[in-house]
């Protein structure tokens, strides 16, 4: 299928991209890795007047280390995120979840910022950003601001970015001692979208779980925190029984869709099963991934 006609701009600076966004507003679409946008254009699910390709904005690529966080450029590809030594050391959950995205050719083009800004509820990385308390760094005509991941995902394919703002990077806090991580997902086949994904960060204190953050993919119109399971895990014993009990609450407060032959009850079941698995694996990894 052939996309509807559009004009094409290929800015080399964030400032130029933002100026075009301000001029065209909702009639512009930012082209990052294109692995979601180009299929949408081909289906004519999107018909922008202008496509702003930010692939040649060098400043948006690469990973920078700061005292207490990593800043990952929005145009850093999945492939580069997976192989980046800083990400593997300080954000192992992001590296391991990114390894499950698409396939090698998709990961060569797809980008961390594109995944976030696309805000697909079935996306693997948005729940990771919730579990990591990431900050989404945006630049626009009024300057730069950081939007907490918890406020960034507004609705299906809708983010808190203003029409004239560009997502330039993701700020991921470095974990302190004692944190463990795991991403678990279920896809009925390699080509299918993630049916449910669970991103877990837990902090262990000797025999118990001090704190847990759990992000869920595809359990509502946006990625969600499994707040009831998080509360049940806080202070719980780090045992299989206690984790299974807490994971039983993983679907509370979520609103999974029924579609494509998948009833919402099945998604809720998957959320409980995958949360139990992911928390146990995250607990077992505590200490190994900590800085």
């Amino acid at each position, binding site marked *: *299928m*052939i*996309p*509807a*006609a*559009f*004009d*094409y701009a*290929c800015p080399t600076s964030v400032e130029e991209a933002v100026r075009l966004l301000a001029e065209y507003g909702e009639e512009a679409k930012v*082209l990052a890795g*294109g*692995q979601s946008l*180009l*299929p949408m*254009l*081909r289906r004519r699910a999107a018909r922008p007047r202008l*496509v702003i*390709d930010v*692939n040649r904005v060098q400043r948006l690529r690469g990973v920078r280390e700061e005292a207490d966080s990593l800043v990952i450029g929005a145009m850093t590809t999945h*492939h580069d995120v997976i192989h980046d030594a800083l990400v593997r050391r300080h954000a192992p959950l992001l590296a391991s979840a990114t390894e499950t995205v*698409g*396939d*090698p*050719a*998709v990961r*060569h*083009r797809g980008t961390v910022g594109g995944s976030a800004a696309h805000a697909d509820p079935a996306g693997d990385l948005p729940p990771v950003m919730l579990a990591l308390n990431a900050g989404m760094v945006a630049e626009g005509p009024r300057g730069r601001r950081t939007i907490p991941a918890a406020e960034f995902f507004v609705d299906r394919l809708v983010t808190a970015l203003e029409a004239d703002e560009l997502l330039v990077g993701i700020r991921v806090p470095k974990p302190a001692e004692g944190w463990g991580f795991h991403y678990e997902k279920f896809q009925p086949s*390699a*080509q299918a979208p993630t049916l449910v994904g669970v991103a877990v960060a837990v902090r262990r204190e000797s025999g118990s779980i001090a704190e847990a953050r759990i992000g869920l993919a595809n359990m509502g119109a946006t990625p969600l925190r499994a707040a009831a399971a998080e509360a049940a895990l806080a202070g719980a014993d780090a045992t299989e029984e206690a984790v299974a009990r807490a994971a039983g609450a993983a679907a509370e407060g979520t609103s999974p869709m029924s579609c494509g032959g998948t009833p919402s009850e099945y998604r809720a079941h998957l959320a409980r099963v995958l949360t139990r698995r992911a928390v146990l694996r995250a607990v077992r990894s505590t200490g190994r991934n900590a800085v």
Partner: protein
Amino acid sequence: MNRISVNVDGTTYEDEVEPRLLLVHYLRDRPALTGTQIGCDTGNCGACTVDLDGASVKSCSVLAVQADGGEVTTLQGLAQDGEWHPLQRSFHERHALQCGYCTPGMIMAARDLLRHNPDPSPEEVRYSLRGNLCRCTGYQNIVQAVLAAAAAPDSVTAPAAGGEQTWP
């Protein structure tokens, strides 16, 4: 219209293209390299996989204008002086195809794997080919062909037309 200059399988092409033209359509229509297939049109099947600047990409999910200044290698750029690439030979010898439609994408994806993992396990081969669908053979012969090519001494070093890209 946008002016682009793209090196495809060792030959440089200068063209005026519409921004909406997909790389796969450009490759098939302009240099008439129809070895690169249009399959699912959704980004899932991998039949259109080519190499762009040293990395495998699905050419249905890249705009031709994005390849401006770049180097593309298609399946048709792999044979050298009439000699098949080791992967082409191995697919032929192991009967790793039936209708053959997915084969160009399979070989380009396998080539990408062997370039940075010259000794993959069967599991790694299967994992790296998950973005390429075959509706005929059931993959067993394809996996065996990739493993056999990996074991062949000239599999990784065989140059592509236009010079091999260095993996970053």
